[in-house]
């Protein structure tokens, strides 16, 4: 690095910016995950029994669901309770229900699902399993809301992956370009090393170390940037999101785990860049 400190400085800065962007994207994804997790806590499934089905069928369904899905919290809702709830929801209009000659509602079963069963696939599978039962007339679990949330998570996941690939590409190109200069600056030394019997590993090792150090230094810069961003922007974001994610708040941008991931990513990308450089420009 002492041969061209400015070039290496620019390389480390570029790596730092790229990893900072990746770190921000990772933080945003984790925020959306936290948001999705908190919304996911509301996922309930209501199973409506067919007309003419009574308490015995409702309790039979409860027992069957509890046996096949042990983590599910389930309770039966009588037509009377359902009508009472509807009245409460309608407010002043609820009085109109009192004039009905018969209770038009049927027995239903409410299921509160454990976290592993909240994925769109698991929900759809359970719903179709229940819809197939002859005693069931319908199943409702807010399919559209769940599907949109999952779409958002998927978009973030793919977007993050794309950003990671771009960052990886930029890092590899920048590191290999700076190491190309380093190899050129040390070409005489490399020639003499080879003539006096240096192994390939001995000649290549300093450049691999240099690439790894560049990656680590870039990760350090990105870590400092994330820490600064958290100090400046995260309190306001947490305030805005508090009503959605609850008292636990948003996950930190620059947690030790995130910093460790950044360091590892910087190290691996720096090494990848140096492998490309020594492979292309250092034929020993």
């Amino acid at each position, binding site marked *: 690095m002492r041969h061209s400190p400015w070039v290496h400085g620019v390389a480390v800065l570029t790596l730092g910016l790229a990893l900072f962007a990746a770190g921000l994207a990772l933080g945003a994804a984790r925020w959306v995950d936290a948001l999705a997790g908190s919304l996911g806590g509301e996922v309930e499934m209501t199973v409506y029994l067919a007309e003419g089905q009574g308490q015995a069928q409702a309790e039979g369904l409860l027992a069957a669901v509890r046996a096949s899905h042990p983590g599910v919290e389930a309770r039966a809702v009588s037509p009377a309770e359902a009508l009472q709830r509807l009245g409460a929801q309608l407010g002043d209009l609820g009085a109109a229900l009192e004039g009905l000659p018969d209770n038009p509602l049927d027995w239903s079963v409410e299921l509160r699902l454990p976290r592993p069963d909240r994925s769109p696939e698991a929900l759809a599978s359970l719903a179709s399993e229940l819809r197939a039962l002859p005693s069931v007339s319908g199943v409702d679990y807010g399919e559209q809301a769940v599907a949109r949330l999952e779409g958002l998570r998927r978009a973030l996941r793919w977007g993050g992956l794309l950003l990671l690939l771009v960052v990886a590409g930029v890092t590899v190109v920048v590191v290999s370009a700076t190491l190309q200069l380093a190899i050129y600056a040390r070409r005489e030394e490399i020639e003499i090393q080879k*003539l*006096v019997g240096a*192994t390939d590993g*001995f000649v290549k090792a300093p450049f691999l170390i240099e690439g790894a150090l560049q990656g680590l230094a870039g990760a350090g810069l990105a870590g400092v940037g994330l820490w600064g961003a958290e100090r400046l922007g995260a309190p306001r974001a947490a305030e805005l999101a508090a009503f959605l994610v609850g008292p636990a708040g948003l996950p930190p941008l620059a947690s030790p785990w995130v910093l460790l991931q950044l360091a590892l990513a910087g190290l691996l990308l720096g090494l990848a860049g140096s492998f490309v450089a020594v492979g292309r420009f250092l034929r020993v």
Partner: protein
Amino acid sequence: MIQMFHVEKAYPGDPPTLQDINLRVEKGEFVFLTGPSGAGKSTLLKLVFAAELPTGGQVLVGGHNVGRLRASGIPYLRRNVGVVFQDFKLLPHRTVAENVAFTLEVLGAPRREVEEKVERMLKRVGLLHKAGSFPPRLSGGEQQRVVIARALVNEPTILLADEPTGNLDPALTVDIMDLLRDVNIRGTTVLVVTHDHSLLERYRSRVLRLERGRLVYDGMGPP
């Protein structure tokens, strides 16, 4: 020590640089390799330390067939072959001691061993007092002695010298040649490339003469 059987070296599009070279250099010999410019002297030397590979025939160095060596085996061959270049190939930003130590550092020798061997070698070539100097501040003869020290510091069994006195005045030439003779007396096989006929007269040793890529003379003293 060094054997060549029907060795050929040709580069695409050019006439062969070396043709049907057969020779045998025994352990502890001092051999001059001479001939006009472009005769193939340097190429023959490069075959010995695997800087080039033969396009025909076989080159054996210390029992190893150079043409069949894997790339990973070449460094280990070179550790037994010290090379002295006419253009020195010294690192200008390293001191004399650091240049000499370079060979041992590459081999991963411990620091204390490096210091001891470098000091001993610089004393032997008469440059201990210049250990901290940088090569550009040394005379041509001194630089050549640093190169010889670097080539010998890990005690190779073969020393190849490509025109080691080509840039030196007569006094320094004698100085360097005496040093190479001394190295040979201590058991190292020495192969010196030169086109200086006076050296062949002064140091009566075995002489190999190349002309147009062919070995045309192999005998004691100048042809």
